[in-house]
């Protein structure tokens, strides 16, 4: 799989660190009760299909970015800003 680093271009997946589902809304710092944080941290939509997710180009520019990928096909979409 080649992932499109927004700064370095298409690179092999081995250069990246995965960061999980990026569609989840992290509660603002200092807000959110236990249930909110539980749902945010522990529950997953885990869709079979379109997914946005975080990746870090860890063996590169170290930027984290949001990427669209289809989990049913591994087809890579756009970098989401």
């Amino acid at each position: 799989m080649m992932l499109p680093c927004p700064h370095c271009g298409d690179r092999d997946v081995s250069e990246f660190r995965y960061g999980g589902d990026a569609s989840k809304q992290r509660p603002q710092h200092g807000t959110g009760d236990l249930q909110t944080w539980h749902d945010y941290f522990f529950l997953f939509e885990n869709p079979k299909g379109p997914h946005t997710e975080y990746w870090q180009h860890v063996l590169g520019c170290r930027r984290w970015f949001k990427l669209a990928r289809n989990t049913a096909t591994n087809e890579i979409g756009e970098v989401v800003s």
Partner: protein
Amino acid sequence: MLERRSALASAKPYVSAALKIAERPGFTLTQFAGLDGDFENKLSAVIGTLPDKVARAQVNGERTIFRIGPAQFWIVGPETDDAASRLAGLCAVTPLSSSRVRIALEGAPARAVLARLMPVDFDAAVFTLGNAALTGLHHTPVTVHCTGADAFDIYAMRTFALDVWDAVTDAAREFAASR
């Protein structure tokens, strides 16, 4: 009295007629990172033209400037470089001269050797003079810079320097002079 010691002091030399692999010491490496919107202007006022993308390094006199991300640059200058002091207070300045070891490769087989090590297109028509890439070499982060037709610098992490040296010279073994 506090002399500098290379991380490659105990590296096994690589000897080859066709390919030179050697440490290129004696540089200052500083990271400059922006803390305000005017950062790049301030930086270029002191340093000159900045590279517009990660893939291309900018050489201004004795300095080579790498863009390593948004609002982040590496400046590699001579040992006496004063860039850090001139930019102090204008942005985040992080001296990194000890953190990297520069390994130079030069010779016809250089591109073939690099292609054995990093998942980057090193074709002569593609990775040309001035091109740079931040990538992984033996699981460690490196910066590769094309400095001539078949000449390259690899900036490797100091603590992995010997390992990277071993990986590079091993990949280049078939070009080494037989002992």
